[in-house]
């Protein structure tokens, strides 16, 4: 007795230490949660560059909300937007607003580029100057002079008779549809005018408090805008809104599904055991398991991944079986018998634990750091929960526990199950199962597209599309990464890429692109452009001289322009002119520099393929498709997970054979069959197979085999306790995980549906496969 006391005490010391560690982690917000799915890829496969870029892009975008207010004429839009901004102004600590802009901003852009005006040309201008005879260009310059109104011109005619600079500026400004009007950012779409507001959320987009504060404020502002303009259209988009929608969804489900399952589980235990103690203790065992898992993982990995927390927590849920089994066996026994009972049950519980741990241990052997983390988390959690049951329960559970009528009734239902053998039931059952399996095998399909997991409200997605169209935003998920050893090399490589993109655009492969070198061409390009302008326009036989002759004016010789330094990237980056495009320049990057080139109008798989095909032929250019990459990660995980599950079945069978000998298959086959039938059912229902279904299968193996073990240990038809234990455990699992099938979050729904079918079927099938021997016959033997 003293040995058990020492074990319990030792465990208490350890648990207290972990409790302290957890408290320290959670209260100080010291727990670093990784949310980047790419962080779960193996080190050698994970591309550090791409990860770095993605992080840089998402970090800057994760707090931004873009709001368009208007829909009618400009004065209405302006009034409404003023009211919107006004309503937000008292909440500066929640969200900062950028709305009123300096009228002089557009003028500043003109001033900034003016010194370099003779060396900045658009592709079209280059083509025009290179292909059209100077006489024709001169005629055009003269015609333009007689127009009462045209493209605004900067400076005197003689400096720029073709208005190259005005056109260059207009082309650059055309990159964005946003204009400054009345000291506000504005946008015109046909007859509809909008004012643009940029909001930046304070604090993290994923912090609950920030989200809860944000939404009512935005709703209030929208209302105020409606007061100023009754027909107002308010479009808002940004990561914080998606996060808030997801949080609201999650909270709603936690309140309904979560509360429902908790209530169900508590009621179930209460009625079965006529005491709350079993539920409290089972919960305690799982809580200790989770705590231990978090402590150990943080010590081993430093950063904990969000996915680990979600899946690890569910995998630890298998520990439910041990506590339930303990109490089912305690039922109707004198408290003094509990030590004896535990010794008797100990070996079978160890086996149940071991078979589950096998699956988790195999996970740890995969080369995926994400899976390894989940494995360590689950295994540690499971072991800790198990140890809690074994070492603490006898001390904490001293009271009597009478067998309730409900418990006896549940346990005795076992006798209703038919036995497989040479009978009609077996025939019908086999036919049904085979039909379902064949149907499932024929309709099963795999889909790892990460977009399947998106479940933003349609309203938000509509707004995203409207705003994307209105602002002509480039695609955020796909882009080119351009690298070079110095800034000039990056820019020249961008220019080589753009030449290819122009061809692609001419063939309808995209509608436009956005690059740093549009604004700051390489020094080489600037030099070539300056030479071209000098030769074709300003030279002795150039456009200017020809046009002057046509007009009967004597051309005053141009003051010989001093050789001008090229416009440098750093100058542009530090000016306000670069503000909307700065994020595309990644600056120092690895050994050199890098930038990204964004694309517009690149929808559809074939367009993406054509764009991706350009990169391999261009030095320093890489195609990055973050959506495809994440989907790829999901596919590898699913594949690897499938292998782990197959191997687990083999090892679990070995462990079962060691204990049960030739009867071992009876404990394993029900779960295997249940898993196959589950996959078939999902396939028949049209659910594509994803990582989340496969993850659930591992959990089903861990739980289902426990049912088999507990039942096979006492296979008699009139044995009440094993079936009670298995039924209560299955019911709790169904309530905890199966109810997730009701979730609106696709990943959780896929997981929950798989658990619902898998656990339900495992429970249903396990008694069928028990040996047909009943006590009297055993005696005869």
């Amino acid at each position: 007795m003293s040995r058990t006391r020492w074990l319990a005490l030792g465990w208490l010391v350890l648990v207290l230490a972990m409790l302290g560690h957890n408290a320290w982690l959670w209260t100080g917000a010291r727990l670093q949660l990784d949310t980047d799915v790419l962080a779960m890829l193996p080190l050698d496969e994970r591309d550090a560059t791409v990860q770095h870029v993605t992080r840089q892009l998402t970090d800057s975008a994760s707090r931004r909300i873009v709001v368009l207010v208007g829909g009618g004429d400009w004065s209405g839009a302006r009034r409404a937007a003023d009211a919107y901004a006004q309503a937000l102004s008292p909440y500066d600590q929640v969200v900062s607003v950028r709305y009123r802009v300096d009228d002089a901003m557009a003028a500043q852009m003109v001033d900034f580029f003016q010194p370099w005006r003779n060396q900045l040309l658009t592709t079209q201008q280059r083509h025009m100057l290179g292909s059209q005879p100077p006489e024709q260009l001169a005629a055009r310059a003269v015609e333009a002079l007689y127009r009462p109104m045209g493209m605004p011109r900067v400076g005197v005619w003689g400096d720029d008779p073709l208005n190259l600079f005005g056109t260059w500026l207009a082309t650059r400004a055309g990159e964005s549809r946003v204009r400054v009007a009345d000291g506000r950012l504005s946008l015109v779409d046909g007859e509809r005018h909008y004012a643009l507001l940029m909001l930046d959320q304070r604090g993290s987009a994923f912090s609950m408090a920030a989200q809860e504060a944000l939404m009512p404020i935005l709703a209030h502002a929208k209302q105020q805008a409606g007061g100023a303009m009754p027909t107002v259209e308010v479009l808002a988009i940004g990561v914080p809104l998606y996060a808030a929608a997801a949080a609201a969804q999650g909270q709603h489900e936690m309140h309904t599904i979560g509360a429902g399952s908790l209530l169900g589980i508590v009621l179930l235990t209460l009625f079965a055991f006529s005491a709350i103690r079993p539920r409290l203790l089972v919960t305690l065992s799982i809580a200790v398991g989770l705590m231990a898992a978090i402590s150990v993982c943080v010590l081993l990995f430093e950063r904990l991944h969000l996915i680990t927390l979600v899946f690890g927590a569910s995998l630890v849920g298998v520990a439910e079986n041990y506590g339930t089994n303990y109490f089912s066996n305690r039922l109707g026994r004198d408290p003094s018998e509990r030590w004896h009972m535990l010794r008797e049950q100990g070996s079978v519980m160890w086996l149940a634990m071991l078979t589950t741990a096998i699956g988790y241990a195999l996970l740890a052997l995969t080369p995926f750091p994400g899976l390894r983390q989940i494995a360590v988390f689950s295994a540690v959690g499971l072991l800790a929960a198990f140890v809690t049951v074994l070492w603490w329960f006898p001390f904490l559970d001293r009271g009597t526990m009478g067998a309730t009528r409900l418990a006896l009734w549940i346990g005795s239902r076992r006798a209703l199950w038919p036995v497989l053998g040479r009978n009609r039931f077996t025939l019908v059952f086999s036919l049904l199962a085979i039909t379902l399996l064949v149907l499932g095998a024929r309709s099963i399909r795999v889909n790892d597209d990460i977009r399947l997991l998106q479940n933003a409200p349609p309203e938000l997605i509509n707004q995203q599309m409207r705003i994307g169209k209105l602002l002509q935003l480039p695609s955020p998920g796909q882009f080119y990464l351009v690298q070079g050893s110095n800034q000039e090399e990056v820019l020249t490589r961008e220019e080589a890429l753009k030449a290819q993109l122009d061809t692609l655009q001419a063939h309808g492969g995209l509608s436009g692109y956005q690059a740093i070198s549009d604004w700051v061409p390489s020094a080489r390009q600037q030099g070539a452009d300056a030479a071209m302008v000098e030769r074709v326009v300003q030279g002795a036989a150039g456009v200017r001289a020809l046009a002057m002759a046509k007009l009967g004016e004597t051309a005053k010789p141009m003051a010989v322009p001093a050789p001008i330094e090229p416009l440098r990237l750093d100058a542009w980056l530090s000016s306000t002119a670069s503000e909307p495009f700065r994020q595309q320049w990644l600056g120092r990057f690895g050994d050199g520099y890098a930038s990204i080139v964004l694309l517009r109008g690149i929808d559809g798989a074939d367009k993406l393929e054509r764009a991706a095909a350009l990169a391999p032929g261009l030095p320093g250019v890489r195609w990055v498709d973050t959506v495809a990459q994440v989907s790829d990660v999901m596919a590898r995980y699913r594949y690897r997970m499938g292998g782990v599950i197959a191997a687990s079945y083999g090892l679990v069978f070995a462990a079962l054979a060691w204990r049960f000998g030739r009867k071992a298959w009876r404990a394993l086959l029900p779960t295997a069959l249940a898993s196959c039938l589950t996959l078939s059912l999902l396939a028949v229902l049209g659910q594509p197979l994803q990582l989340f279904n496969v993850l659930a299968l591992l959990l089903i193996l861990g739980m289902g085999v426990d049912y088999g073990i507990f039942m096979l240990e006492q296979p008699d038809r009139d044995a009440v306790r094993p079936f009670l234990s298995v039924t209560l455990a299955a019911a709790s699992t169904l309530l905890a995980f199966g109810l997730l099938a009701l979730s609106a979050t696709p990943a959780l729904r896929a997981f929950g549906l798989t658990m619902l079918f898998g656990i339900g079927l495992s429970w249903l099938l396990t008694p069928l496969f028990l040996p047909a021997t009943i006590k009297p016959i055993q005696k005869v033997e």
Partner: protein
Amino acid sequence: MLFLLALASHAADLMVDVRSRLGQPAVLRGEFEQSKQVAGFKKALLSKGDFLVARDRGVIWRTREPFASVLKLTPHEIVATQGSEIAFRLSANTEPSVRVINGLMFSMLNGDIAALAEQFKIAGTAEAKSWSLTLVPKQAAFAKILTRIELSGDVYVRRIAMDEANGDRTVIQFHKQTPEPAKLSADEVAQFD
């Protein structure tokens, strides 16, 4: 404070006065003489022709001398043609300022003072029949290009003078303006398409 109010009401009165004198028909045709003094040029550039302003459609500006060319300004684009050749085309889809330019041209020719007041600070005088206004851009970016516009007229705008920031000055005189016929001919409609 009172002084400010008086000023404001004066500007508002002026606008009402001028608007009450202006015809602003749905369709207006007439002839023009344009003189443009380009900075650095000895002689002013003279041109003559006729124009058509149609509400909801835009402006056709047809130069006959010294060479034939047509400038079409609609809410969607600016197109300049010489003979059958397009010399210049700018779409509002790619360049939103096309709307501003075309709106300005339309408002000046048609005397839409209310529209002009959105972009310009307006001052001036109104006599029994005639009036004259001076317009200064409200926006800094606009003022970088166009410093001042003078408009004068009676039932119609008779004279426009524009000063550009680069020193160019354009003066346009109008004659024979008429609102009849109030409907566009099929030929005129075709010109806008």
